[in-house]
């Protein structure tokens, strides 16, 4: 990070830009690079967030010239940039910083070529030896790439410069493999060089959870077991496996969503106030609360977790196949496309408050939210008829598709008699702030350039997440079809999930 103050930056629209640097994308010809990474970098350049001289090197096995890479990326940016296609002049200046290096992922000669290319870029474009290695490759290649980076000396920084590595999920397949991968990374990189991406964390509303909780004095006094009845965290998708059946067969709802994204959301909702906005201060609190989640013993999994798998059904006005009929999926697959768990946190703030987490594919609609259900008032003064059934207050933080906050209150219906109705107070990002939110990858790439790891997952959080879900995964793996509940595509999941909620509580209709 630049420690020399630039006096011309005072009150500028962009407070600072990162140090000049080069990002090396392994797997540059892949989908992620084309759909997300390069369009995100282009948008950052367009928004004047990138430093002068910023460069990108694509590294992959196939032979390709710089010009050919630029042509591919031009097409990608034209199609996928959320700020619109580039003009000729804009593209010419951005493309001048794009380079390609061909080499095998475990080929020392390829890494020597990469090293030489980076040195040339440093000299010609003033990138100062600052590097980010982005591993946009299948998990099986992470180990060989890291070994090669280590052996070639690219993992180490020259004096006065920095080197960082970004790793995409999944971080391991289970606790054991996650630990092995983290240990592998740790042998070559220091933990503060490692940025494990969780794009969910970079969503505007997810970041707003911390702001809402700790910048508004009204919430903290009631944010505890005395006033909160329970919390529901939902990530529902309408889509199925979308041609990625082969990948999903080795994953499932718990590995894909629950052990990382939903647990991150839980941690942000439940953590204690951090002492500062420093990356480690926030991540320390997140890990602390994750560690306070009561482990689920393997023999109690059925009482705390429900899994489901979608069958053929009706979604979006058309018939869709069941999971077992999807391409690349075994006809006897027991992979869960839906998972719901009940978690409890053993600390003073949350003792006795259940956190219900659910995630599924092919559900009724696409929605992700955190719903904080407050306790009923101690005495129901106003209940006169069944129609007046008073619903408790509810605070909903909506993550997608309609980012915002809703607070449910009770109000009196106009008239002489006292009849109550629930009314919602709503705040919607799209309505109140008519500006384009940054794409998650824009934010994450920029944060990495700045060396800000707040939105990235630390090793201990990854392993804590895996440790929590392993009894569930192990139990299900040993159960065959026994506790696999089928649900029709286009519904809210298996009815068995309702039994996780104690009497008087129901899953929210979103």
């Amino acid at each position, binding site marked *: 990070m*630049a*420690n*020399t*103050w*630039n*006096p*011309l*930056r*005072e*009150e*500028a*629209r*962009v407070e*600072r*830009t990162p*140090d*000049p640097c080069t990002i090396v994308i392994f797997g540059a010809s892949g989908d992620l690079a084309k759909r997300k990474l390069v369009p995100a970098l282009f948008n950052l*350049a*367009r928004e*004047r967030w*990138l*430093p*002068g*001289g910023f460069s990108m090197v694509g590294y992959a096995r196939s032979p390709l010239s710089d010009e050919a890479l630029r042509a591919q990326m031009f097409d990608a940016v034209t199609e996928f940039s959320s700020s619109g296609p580039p*003009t000729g*002049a*804009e593209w*010419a*200046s*951005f493309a*001048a*910083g794009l380079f390609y290096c061909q080499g095998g992922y475990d080929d020392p000669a390829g890494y020597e070529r990469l090293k030489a290319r980076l040195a040339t870029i440093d000299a*010609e*474009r*003033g990138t*100062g030896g600052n590097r980010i290695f982005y591993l946009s490759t299948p998990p099986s290649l992470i180990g060989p790439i890291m070994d090669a980076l280590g052996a070639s000396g690219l993992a180490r920084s020259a004096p006065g410069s920095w080197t960082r590595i970004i790793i995409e999920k999944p971080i391991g397949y289970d606790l054991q493999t996650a630990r092995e991968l983290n240990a592998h990374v740790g042998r070559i990189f220091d933990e503060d060089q490692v940025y494990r991406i969780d794009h969910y964390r970079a969503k505007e509303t997810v970041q707003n959870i911390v702001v809402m909780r700790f910048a508004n004095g009204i919430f903290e006094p009631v944010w505890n077991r005395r006033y909160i009845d329970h919390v529901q965290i939902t990530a529902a998708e309408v889509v199925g496996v979308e041609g990625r059946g082969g990948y999903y067969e080795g994953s499932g709802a718990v590995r894909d969503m629950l052990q990382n994204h939903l647990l991150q959301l839980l941690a942000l909702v439940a953590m204690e106030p951090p002492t500062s906005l420093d990356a480690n201060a926030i991540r320390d609190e997140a890990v602390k609360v994750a560690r306070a989640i009561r482990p689920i013993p393997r023999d109690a999994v059925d009482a705390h977790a429900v899994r489901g798998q979608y069958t053929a059904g009706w979604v979006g006005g058309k018939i869709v196949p069941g999971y077992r009929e999807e391409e690349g999926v075994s006809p006897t697959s027991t992979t869960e496309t839906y998972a719901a768990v009940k978690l409890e946190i053993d600390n003073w703030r949350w003792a006795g408050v259940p956190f219900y987490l659910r995630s599924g594919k092919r559900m009724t609609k696409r929605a992700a939210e955190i719903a904080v259900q407050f306790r009923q008032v101690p005495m129901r003064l106003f209940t006169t008829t069944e129609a007046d059934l008073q619903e408790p207050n509810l605070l909903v933080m909506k993550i997608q598709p*309609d980012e915002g906050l809703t607070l449910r209150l009770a109000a009196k219906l106009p008239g002489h008699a006292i009849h109550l109705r629930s009314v919602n107070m709503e705040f*919607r990002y*799209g*309505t*109140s*702030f*008519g*500006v384009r939110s940054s794409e998650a990858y824009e934010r994450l790439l920029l944060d990495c350039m700045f060396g800000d790891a707040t939105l990235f997952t630390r090793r201990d959080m990854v392993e804590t997440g895996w440790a929590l879900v392993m009894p569930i995964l192990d139990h299900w793996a040993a159960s065959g079809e026994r506790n696999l509940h089928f649900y029709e595509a286009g519904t809210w999941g298996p009815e068995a999930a309702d039994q996780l909620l104690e009497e008087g509580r129901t899953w929210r209709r979103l």
Partner: protein
Amino acid sequence: MGIVEDIERRRQVDVAAIERELTELWKAAAHEGDAGAAVLRVCLLNLLVFTTDESCIGEVSDIVAHITASAPCRAIIVHANPAGNAPDAQAWIASHCHLDDHRRQVCCEEIRVSVSGAAIKYLARTVAPLIAPDLPVFLWWRDVQTLREKYFGDFLPEVDRVIVDSRGLTHRDPLASELAAFVLETRRRAAFSDLNWTRLTRWRDLIAGLFDAPDLTQYLSEITRVSITYAKDDESPGLPMQTLLLAGFLIAQLDWKLKDAYAITPHQAELRFRAARRRVTLTIEPQTDSRLPQRELTAVTLSAERPAPALFQVVCQPTQGTDLLYTTTVNITQGARHHTTITLPALTDARLMTREVEIFGRSKPYERALRMALDVINELKLDAQTT
């Protein structure tokens, strides 16, 4: 986002009953919403606009409609007619609506107040009750020549930020130095902003970006020559206020001491400074180009001789459409050379105001730049008197 001004619903109302009429307006909208798309009423701030020019009210209303798309607000457009004979105050209300991401109608209210004759003396008292409580208040005062009137001063306790525009003023206009002096002496009573300063934001960003890299930041203390050019296709004399604000910004932020300033021609000047261990020369000169916004910047070049000869430049060029092309260049002899080109939209008043209402409080860099610009104007006046 599509913007729909609800012309049908614009109607004249009793000034004393505006709040009640607004309630009726929203009730009517809600009833219509029952039948079709729901209407959301959103308000993040108050925007007061003052003008004495009746012909620009339509333009102001259009600008307000654009602002509401990203900053939903209660807009109060005040037209004052000091020449009117009878004291009179009239009001109209209307709504501005646009569709949000989810095709819902988001609506904001616009109140127009027209005041004439002696009623102008009580302008602030007429408007103050209409301000939505507990929200920031921005006052866009479009007639800088009336800033010293008492009725402007009466607004100061009611507002958080006053926005003026020095566009069109040059160092030769007495109003330029009067405006600068007024803002500097009133700044403790209200935060001031100048749209001409906001027009410089992208230039300040781009120039700052040239020096962000740690090994380039050191060049800021080695700058010896600066050239600021502006677009001009007529013979009218005077240095545009925008060039003086940028010069003032560089002087203040880089801690240069003004030694002297003189006009080379009626629209070209050279300023000389003392800085640590060196002297700095800054020239302001016109560039004939009718395709670029007139009297606005076209290029800024900063040069240094040490530690190696270096040139830092931002250039603005026209495009086929209304957008502008900005190219930044860093050229260090035997060192880094790179350039970046970005396309940015032309700066309309609507765009500038949208940016303005995001900012709160006083801007120290603006105040310092204004102080330095005033010093330069005074020095140029002195030079004109002695030659």
